[in-house]
């Protein structure tokens, strides 16, 4: 079963996954905390309530134990030999005047010692003891003041049937006091009572004021019928303090269904518990701030807060994830770009390297080309030199001839006429001028050929000038050179010497072609002919034309397209560099011209060059080319 993984997950990095996992765990943990917190709160509340109840129970039990001890004290006192001695002496008939007073003294001493010795946390438990006879007369009173036997306070507190100590609350001098009384028996006959008044403040300090489990606890001791005895309210609110007086008595009391049962009543802001004291007509009331026990945890708040936190976490997580994804994407793109950059850089480097190589190669090529061009030019120059040699040969022959004639004349002592000498000298001068012209032309050619400086030239003159360099050679090789110029000047904007180079090159190729054909031709009547012609047209575009035609070997169709390619040649390496026609084409194109080839293998080739015509206008200074008539 193939699990579909969300695309965004696939591109998430490990750290992000970790964050996601942590956040999810955090959410789960928060949920867990929430639940446990709620449970803990509930448990805490229960614990607080339990602690409160325990506290109450403990206090109640302590109070009960306290009263049990007091009862024991009284029983023990009632059966002391001091009190027994009194009853014995009384039974003997002794009178107070003669001996019985001693018993009172001893009893009082005993009771005072009890007051001094029975302490609770350093405080006296008992405030006062009295011994009362059956008629309610006070026999002994530890109170240091005057004993008033008519004081109604002195009376019997116990019924005749009472055999055990009893605790009760009585008002003495307007104040409620906790009292205890135990019957005194002599020979199983009720003989009197021993009464004790407890020190309420000592009792209260120990059992009511004793450190509370909670600062908001408060305790109060009341009588069974609801009268206030003593209270300590802790740090509960004013409301609780005031409220205590408003609780109806019936609600403050509790019917004990089981011994020691603690009843808890709930009111507005406080929790009230009533703990009855088993062996005394007293109730212990405890108060506690309700919120503390029943809690103010308001679970919905907790949920709300936790929910908000969870939402915040989730939203943050989402934002983090999104940012991370975008970062991841950007990072990926950046890495890709980096890669591409590196690739490009590498390629650039390679390219640069290749460019450099290519540049070097081109430079080399250029050098080679230059060399080849130079070589070609040199070859052209050579051609030209060869042509020039032919051309110079004739005038030199003429100069020699004339000079010989003059010398012969002089040597033979014939009288060579001055006129003949002048005529011969003139011919020598003309031939010399011709040679100078030829040499000058060659010199100019050598310097200017390949230059791009242009000027308006008559095409006819330029062709003628260039052709003239090879005219004699052609003649010596037996090649017929046919010339056909335009009857009118054809002005073009060119560099004449560069065009002469073109003409030399084309004428040279034509010569080679016809000579080649002559070599291989079996026809005896083959006559190599090279023709050169110029004309112009006035059509849509006025153009000047130069055509060089030969009836040589011609160029095959498969070679024709390459004929103008640099370094392409059909000749042997020592015969040609392959740059002639490419240079020719570049020169022509430099002059905004065009060269075309029309060739038929075995028949011959026609090279046609055309240039834009420039019109000439006559000005007061002479002819001046204004512009290309096409423009």
């Amino acid at each position, binding site marked *: 079963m193939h699990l579909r993984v969300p695309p965004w997950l696939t591109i998430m990095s490990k750290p992000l996954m970790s964050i996601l996992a942590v956040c999810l765990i955090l959410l789960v943990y928060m949920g867990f905390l929430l639940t446990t917190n709620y449970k803990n709160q509930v448990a805490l509340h229960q614990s607080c309530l339990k602690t409160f109840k325990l506290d109450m129970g403990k206090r109640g039990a302590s109070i009960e134990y306290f009263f049990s001890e007091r009862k024991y004290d009284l029983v023990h006192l009632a059966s002391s030999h001091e009190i*027994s001695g009194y009853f014995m002496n009384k039974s003997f008939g*002794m009178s107070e005047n003669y001996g019985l007073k001693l018993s009172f003294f*001893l009893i009082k001493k005993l009771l005072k010692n009890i007051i001094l010795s029975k302490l609770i946390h350093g405080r006296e438990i008992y405030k006062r003891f009295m011994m009362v006879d059956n008629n309610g007369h006070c026999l002994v009173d530890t109170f240091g003041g005057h004993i008033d036997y008519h004081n109604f306070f002195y009376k019997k507190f116990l019924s005749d049937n009472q055999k055990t100590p009893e605790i009760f609350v009585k008002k003495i001098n307007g104040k409620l006091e906790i009292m205890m009384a135990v019957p005194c028996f002599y020979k199983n006959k009720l003989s009197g009572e021993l009464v004790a008044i407890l020190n309420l403040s000592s009792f209260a300090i120990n059992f009511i004021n004793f450190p509370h489990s909670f600062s908001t606890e408060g305790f109060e001791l009341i009588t069974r019928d609801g009268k206030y005895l003593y209270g300590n309210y802790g740090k509960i609110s004013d409301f609780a303090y005031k409220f205590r007086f408003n609780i109806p008595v019936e609600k403050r009391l509790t019917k004990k269904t089981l011994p020691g049962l603690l009843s808890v009543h709930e009111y507005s802001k406080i929790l009230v518990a009533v703990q009855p004291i088993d062996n005394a007509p007293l109730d212990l009331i405890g108060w506690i701030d309700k919120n503390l026990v029943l809690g103010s945890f308001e679970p919905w708040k907790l949920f709300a807060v936790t929910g908000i936190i969870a939402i915040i976490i989730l939203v943050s997580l989402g934002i983090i994830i999104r940012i991370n994804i975008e970062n991841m994407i950007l990072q990926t793109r950046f890495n890709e770009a980096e890669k591409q950059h590196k690739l490009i850089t590498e390629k650039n480097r390679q390219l640069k390297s290749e460019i450099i190589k290519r540049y070097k190669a081109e430079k080399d090529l250029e050098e080679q080309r230059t060399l080849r061009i130079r070589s070609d030019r040199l070859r052209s120059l050579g051609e030209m030199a060869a042509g020039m040699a032919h051309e110079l040969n004739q005038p030199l022959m003429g100069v020699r001839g004339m000079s010989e004639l003059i010398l012969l004349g002089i040597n033979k002592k014939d009288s060579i006429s001055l006129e003949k000498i002048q005529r011969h000298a003139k011919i020598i001068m003309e031939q010399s001028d011709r040679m100078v012209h030829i040499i000058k032309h060659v010199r100019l050619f050598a310097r200017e050929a390949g230059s791009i400086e242009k000027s308006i030239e008559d095409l006819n003159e330029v062709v003628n000038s260039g052709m003239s360099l090879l005219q004699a050679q052609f003649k010596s090789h037996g090649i017929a050179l046919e010339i056909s110029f335009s009857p009118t000047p054809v002005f073009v904007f060119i560099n004449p010497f560069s065009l002469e180079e073109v003409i030399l090159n084309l004428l040279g190729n034509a010569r080679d072609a016809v000579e080649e054909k002559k070599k291989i031709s079996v026809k005896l009547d083959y006559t190599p002919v090279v023709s050169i012609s110029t004309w112009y047209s006035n059509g849509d575009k006025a153009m000047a034309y130069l055509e060089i035609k030969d009836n040589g070997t011609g160029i095959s169709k498969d070679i024709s397209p390459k004929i103008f390619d640099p370094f392409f040649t059909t000749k042997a390496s020592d015969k040609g560099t392959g740059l002639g026609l490419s240079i020719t084409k570049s020169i022509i194109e430099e002059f905004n011209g065009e060269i075309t080839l029309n060739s038929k293998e075995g028949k011959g080739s026609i090279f046609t060059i055309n240039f834009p015509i420039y019109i000439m206008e006559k000005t007061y200074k002479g002819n001046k080319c204004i512009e290309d008539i096409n423009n």
Partner: protein
Amino acid sequence: MGKDKKVSVYNLAKNKSFLKSIILITIVFIIFPLLFSQTTAGAGDLKAVIKAGKLRHLGIYYANFVKKNNTGLDVELMQMFAEYLGVKYEFVESNWTDILSDLLGKNVKPVGDDNVVLSGKRPVKGDVIATGFTILPWRRKTVDFSKMTFPTGIWLIADASLPVKPITPTGNIQEDIQATKNLLKGISVLVLKGSCLDPGIYGLNKTGAKIKLFPPDHNLKEMIPSVMAGVVDTTIMDVPVALIALQRWPGEIKVIGPVSPKQKMACAFPKTSPNLRRKFNKFLDQCKVDGRYKHLVNKYYPSVFIYYPHFLKN
């Protein structure tokens, strides 16, 4: 002239009879006083005590007045008095029969109810008697008493089982005494001659009671146990001692009633020691004022205040 005097004295010395007279006079006026100086020095007054550097306290081990191990109300009182005088304290044990003789240096014998005969000579052993000593008429004839140190009286103590009921107080001591005496007919009563428990003082001889004399060489504290033991039916006893006995043996003994009116105890001084007595009275007053004496009484006889709550004020 000088020569003449020498000759006359020399001549007298040669006279033998003159010499004998001188010797006799010397003996009479010097030696005899020395011989008898013990009597006058033993019962010395204040100066003699101070000169002797000690106060000799005559006492009888009796209840809480004089107890063994050098404690007791009178013992501590005398110790304080000695310190007050700036002398050492010395306890001298005596008995009821000889104590006055030990003080006076003479044989003292009571005769009848209130007479006494002094005879003979004997060593004076003490300077003061303080031992719960009741002021009795016949004793007054022989010694001078200090201010009252302790209140007392004489009660008739009986065994609890004796079928004689205690009297019902009338509010009149004399009537109560009579009522008590009326019950004595045929009842044995333990007494001690020559002391505050002498029956003659209280007219018990005329009540028809069987008088039993307690041996004077016995300790008085054995009197009440004798009653409890059934040796005698009753005994008379000082109130302070009776009170202690009632505390000690509750339910064993009972008080029938009084046989004497209120009595006083005091310290006894020889009539030749008025200064010492006066000094003691001054000392006693001081002790009463500053509370030392009350402290002593509370220590040894706290119950005395039940019946004599104001005795210190008197």
